[in-house]
């Protein structure tokens, strides 16, 4: 207890210098937790939105289907297997037929996906009920991004051309029944949703689908022949690595902050070991071993980390709690982020995040504090008392 007590006394009596370092360190502390919390919150929100609008509880893919290869769509359709039909009938799944198509908005050629979905499905958050209404026309549902980029609005009619199962071209006019807002670009960009049965009829793919989306929390059945189940872990993989990449990019800033704080502590240490060599000589004359002197100085530096954690807690907890409770309005530009974000972002701070950051900061501070003290290891007490630092 002697050394920690002396260390604490020493750094507290250093006054302003100590508090400046502690404050700098506490800033990086709060910044790390805040930013990491933002990314964790972002991750949660993005995943939730994506699961609700797109992935559900996992998807059965017709074996030719490859979302990264538009050409694969040509063959990616097959009759819905009986067990999946059964699930669908019970509301536990929603088949989707995906075909490539072409539209000519304002006379310009544009390649899109035509997605057939049951207007009454309750598996995905896509507002498919809008497709119920119109009887004499073919209703289409598009997201706001698609509406903007194609210059379409509710009530507009657009000519859509596709090939049927035999490769024969066919074209119809689709009336935009609704434009919906979504955070999930994959159910919005370059696509038009129409009623499943009509798409099946137009393409002569009666009772066929490309994927069957399982409702969230419904247990999957064993893979029917020709279909493969992709669980949400698989489907979210790309998204997670994208968020992770963004979070690493974001962390550059807080690492810089941490680096600056560490530089301040390192500097304080080097300076204080230089200035206090006589004191070290005295401590050794009083019977402290070199190891104890090294412990003392390391402890002094390391205590900056502990103090920073305490100071960070004082202003950080209310600040972070406020941010988590209220959320942020996101600037429009975040749409370019590459994934779905809600209107508001709510940071999420897990105990693991807070504990991990505390540990990280304390360990790094201790190491940085220890490094300059190695100079003490070959200090002769007589030299130290004479004010020499050999």
């Amino acid at each position, binding site marked *: 207890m002697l050394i920690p007590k002396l260390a604490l*006394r020493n750094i507290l*009596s250093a006054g302003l210098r100590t508090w400046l370092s502690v404050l700098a360190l506490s800033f990086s502390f709060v910044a790390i937790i805040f930013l990491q919390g933002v990314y964790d919150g972002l991750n949660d929100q993005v995943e939730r939105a994506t699961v609700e609008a797109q992935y559900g509880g996992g998807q059965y893919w017709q074996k030719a289907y490859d979302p990264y290869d538009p050409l694969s769509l040509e063959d990616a359709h097959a009759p819905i297997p009986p067990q999946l039909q059964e699930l669908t009938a019970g509301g536990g799944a929603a088949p989707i037929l995906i075909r490539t198509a072409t539209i000519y908005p304002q006379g310009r050629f544009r390649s899109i996906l035509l997605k057939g979905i049951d207007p009454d499905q309750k598996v995905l958050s896509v507002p498919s009920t809008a497709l119920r209404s119109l009887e004499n026309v073919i209703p289409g549902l598009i997201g706001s991004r698609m509406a903007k980029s194609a210059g379409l609005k509710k009530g507009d009619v657009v000519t859509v051309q596709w090939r049927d199962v035999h490769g024969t071209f066919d074209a119809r006019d689709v009336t935009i029944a609704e434009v919906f807002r979504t955070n999930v670009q994959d159910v919005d960009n370059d696509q038009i949703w129409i009623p499943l049965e009509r798409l099946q009829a137009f393409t002569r793919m009666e009772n066929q689908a490309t994927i069957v989306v399982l409702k969230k929390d419904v247990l999957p059945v064993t893979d029917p022949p020709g279909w493969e189940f992709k669980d949400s872990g698989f489907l979210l993989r790309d998204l997670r690595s994208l968020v992770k990449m963004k979070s690493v990019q974001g962390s550059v800033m807080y690492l810089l902050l941490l680096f600056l704080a560490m530089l301040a502590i390192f500097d304080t240490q080097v300076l204080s070991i230089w200035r206090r060599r006589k004191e070290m000589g*005295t401590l050794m004359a*009083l*019977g402290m071993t070199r190891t104890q002197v090294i412990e003392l100085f390391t402890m002094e530096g390391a205590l900056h980390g502990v103090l920073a954690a305490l100071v960070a807690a004082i202003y950080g907890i209310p600040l972070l709690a406020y941010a988590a409770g209220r959320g942020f309005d996101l600037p429009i530009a975040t749409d370019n982020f590459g994934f779905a974000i809600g209107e508001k972002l709510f940071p999420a701070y897990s105990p693991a995040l807070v504990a991990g950051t505390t540990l990280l900061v304390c360990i790094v501070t201790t190491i940085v504090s220890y490094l300059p003290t190695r100079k003490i290891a070959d200090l*002769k007490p*007589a030299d130290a*008392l004479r004010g020499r630092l050999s």
Partner: protein
Amino acid sequence: MENSVLIRTHDLDKIYSLGLTDLKALDRITLSVARGEFVGFVGPSGSGKTTLLNIIGSLDVPTSGSAEVLGRRIESLSHKESAGLRNRHIGFIFQTFNLLPVYTVYENVEFPLLLQGMESSRRKQLVGDALEWVGLADRADSRPAQLSGGQSQRVAIARAIVKQPEIVLADEPTANLDAANSHHIMKTMAQLNEDLKTTFIFATHDEKVIGYLKRKITLVDGKIAKDETVEKTTAG
């Protein structure tokens, strides 16, 4: 000289290397100091007093020759052993007092006992006694910055004697004190020497200090020039 010998050096040399040349700070020092002595190394600045005192205090090691303190060979002690020797058996008093500024008077005096791991009631008693001895019991809660030079040096004396060491080494203890305070602390130490039979060794060129010494070892250029026992005088 009476009974047991506490310190014995034999052909002790200390050579500092100054790059191209060497500096012989101590040259074949052979001497012994017995329990209860009140002795001083005197001589001009640079004559090797501090160097000799530091070796006896195990703060430094000789280049050649031997130094035996309380039965231990200084040149062959490990860091830990020499730290233990200083902590338990040797008290130090410095020209610049060297108190720990963040500690109170009481805590400064208590520090060597804390290092020993002594239990608190015994500590309390010893610290109280030591402060009583130097007449600073009423300043126990002060900080070093609040003390005068004379008071600071008396705290340092209390810190040196609190563990009841066999030997106290004092290097120019009066150099930063006025005449009145110099005599005050010398009287205090002479009294401790009388009452507790603690051995005191000084390094000094201050006549006020020299006046109190019972034995005077004069160093010139690292050699013992004279070693004389003097009649006890009462200066001031």
